């Protein structure tokens, strides 16, 4: 298999750097800095130290016995990214990028956030390293995720509500890029997913690879062999690419990315970029995009604010087109059912994002044998979602009564 990305940041036809000229040198500077430090023993030691002592890695690979029995198929393992400090995999990346920002001499960082998880993870590392932090968040999302807004403020970050466009994650990304264009000389942009212009998709993947690398060691220790299938939720795709990447060369390991089908892929309210989108250029890279015939980007919908995004990281588009990974949709309702099931069978309330992966595991698991192994990347914990779930249930209840 080809080494991706190539020196132009291309994953096959996907990726690249489609940004205004003002940002080009900043991206080149970032790429140079990353290339200089990514194999530097001191840099790696600092990142590794923080992952271990600050975030609590390695996260466990937990054998979900009761869930496995319920499904009646394979042995199901959960990679417990929800047990990271701040409650999700996002911190793996923000630690890496903040250490890089510090080495580059930057004192200010900015970040975009949807559900607030990446915003919180960015505010956290900014506090840890004494960096000034601004987080851009769609105004709609600041209402849906008030607790995370408050957490970010407690951590000393400034939260800037974004009033443009659909006032959700995609517009928060646009606004962060616009701010970066104006302040590129002294500001580092901590991008939260494996999306955007090169080198972000590669760099975020590399910082998230720790998920897959640990899983590999842990499953070999527990079972003496690699899993038959791995399932992860995909919005921009950072937890999934971090989990998948160390297994891409293992043809026997099926890789399944789960995207949000919202109210259904045949409605207009979904975020099923792979199922319903087509290749285009969006927010700095070529990848699958939800768009109309004229190339205008469509609003996405999902019960989970973290999957509510009309694009996807370019490496996922590449894995789809070379048929190394498959991407399937799961609806709001299916995700919610899976969330409840995991809560009751295992005492683990997953994030709504991760619940999409659990829901797909129930489907995939049904056709697998008992001696097979399935790993779910449990990317985050569900505490942040309790309010959205209450609201969703109340609305569904109201709908039934009519």
């Amino acid at each position: 298999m080809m080494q991706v990305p190539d020196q132009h940041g291309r994953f096959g036809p996907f990726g690249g750097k489609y940004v205004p000229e003002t940002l080009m040198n900043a991206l080149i500077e970032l790429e140079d800095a990353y290339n200089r430090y990514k194999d530097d023993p001191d840099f790696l030691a600092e990142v590794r130290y923080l992952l271990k002592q600050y975030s609590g890695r390695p996260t466990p690979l937990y054998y979900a016995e009761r869930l496995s029995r319920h499904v009646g198929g394979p042995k199901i393992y959960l990679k417990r990214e929800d047990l990271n400090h701040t409650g999700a995999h996002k911190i793996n990346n923000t630690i890496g990028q903040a250490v890089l920002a510090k080495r580059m001499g930057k004192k200010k960082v900015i970040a975009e956030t949807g559900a607030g998880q990446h915003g919180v993870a960015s505010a956290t590392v900014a506090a840890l390293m004494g960096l000034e932090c601004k987080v851009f968040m769609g105004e709609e999302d600041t209402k849906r995720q008030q607790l995370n807004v408050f957490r970010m403020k407690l951590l000393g970050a400034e939260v800037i509500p974004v009033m443009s466009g659909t006032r959700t994650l995609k517009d928060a990304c646009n606004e962060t890029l616009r701010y970066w264009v104006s302040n590129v000389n002294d500001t580092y942009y901590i991008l939260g997913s494996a999306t955007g212009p090169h080198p972000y998709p590669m760099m975020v993947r590399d910082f998230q690879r720790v998920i897959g690398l640990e899983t590999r060691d842990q499953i070999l220790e527990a079972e003496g062999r690699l899993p038959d299938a791995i399932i992860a939720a995909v919005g921009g795709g950072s937890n999934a690419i971090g989990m998948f990447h160390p297994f891409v060369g293992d043809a026997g390991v099926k890789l399944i990315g789960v995207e949000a089908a919202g109210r259904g892929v045949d409605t207009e309210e979904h975020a099923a970029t792979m199922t319903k989108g087509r290749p285009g250029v969006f927010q700095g890279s070529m990848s699958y995009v939800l768009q109309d015939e004229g190339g205008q980007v469509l609003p996405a919908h999902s019960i989970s604010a973290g999957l509510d995004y009309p694009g996807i990281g370019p490496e996922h588009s590449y894995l789809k087109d070379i048929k190394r990974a498959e991407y399937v949709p799961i609806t709001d309702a299916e995700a919610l059912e899976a969330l409840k099931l995991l809560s009751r069978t295992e005492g683990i309330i997953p994030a709504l994002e991760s619940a999409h992966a659990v829901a797909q595991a129930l489907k995939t698991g049904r056709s697998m044998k008992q001696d097979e192994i399935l790993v779910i990347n449990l990317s985050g914990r569900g505490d942040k979602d309790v309010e959205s779930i209450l609201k969703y249930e109340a609305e569904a209840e109201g709908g039934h009564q009519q």
Partner: protein
Amino acid sequence: MSAAITTNAIDEVFARLKESGETALIPFMTMGDPDLETSVALVQAAEAAGAHMIELGIPYSDPLADGPVIQRASERALKNRISLTDCIGVASKAREKGVRMPFIIFTYFNPALQLGLERFFGLLQENGFSGAIIPDLPMEEDAETKEIADRHGIHLIPLVAPTSEARVERIASRASGFVYCVSSLGVTGERSSFHEGIGAFLATVRKAASVPICVGFGISSREQAESLAGQCDGVIVGSAIVRKVEESLPLLIADDADRKAEGIAAVRDFIAALKPQRVG
């Protein structure tokens, strides 16, 4: 016949202005704001106001390089589901009504990509365009696009920014039409001051470029236009004009023909007042 060897109207205008010692005034307008018919009338008004060429902006859902004024104009236009081909149609309608200045399309890459680059540049050629500006297509990504544009006789006009530094020479030396110099860091929008090193920046671009150089992003008054006039061949005014259109919306969308004409005249007068006076 090869389109590439025919003279491009942008080159002709700059040649003429060089003779007369004038600086080009290049307005930008968002097409379809508030509707296509009004856009045709506003293009006519821009020429009447003394514009030498015009940028026709394609509304886009995610205008990364644009500030709030142009974002709002895009949102208004997209509410009417204005497409890229509709916008190209504005140019041919304006030609039919006698507009003679060169047309430059300003679009983000994705709408052109989805139309198909061959078809996009074919339509530009058929509808009397002379140039294209694609703000999210840096030189690293533009090889195929540039080849197709050249084949259709359309100048693919590149942007250079104060942060371009060592890239300036490479961008400017392969430019066609003119080099679009971004006056300051940041997105489009009016500003009271430009990047501090603007003089040196423009001198660097000038030295590297074999085509004219024009300045845009943040120019909103004649004083600003004049302060730059000696250092460049043209000034581009976008947000200030789009804001004038926004302020004139109640008139521009009026059913009453007189009120509508009043709105168009207001935009025309605003553009006329921006025109830098002849240098020297």
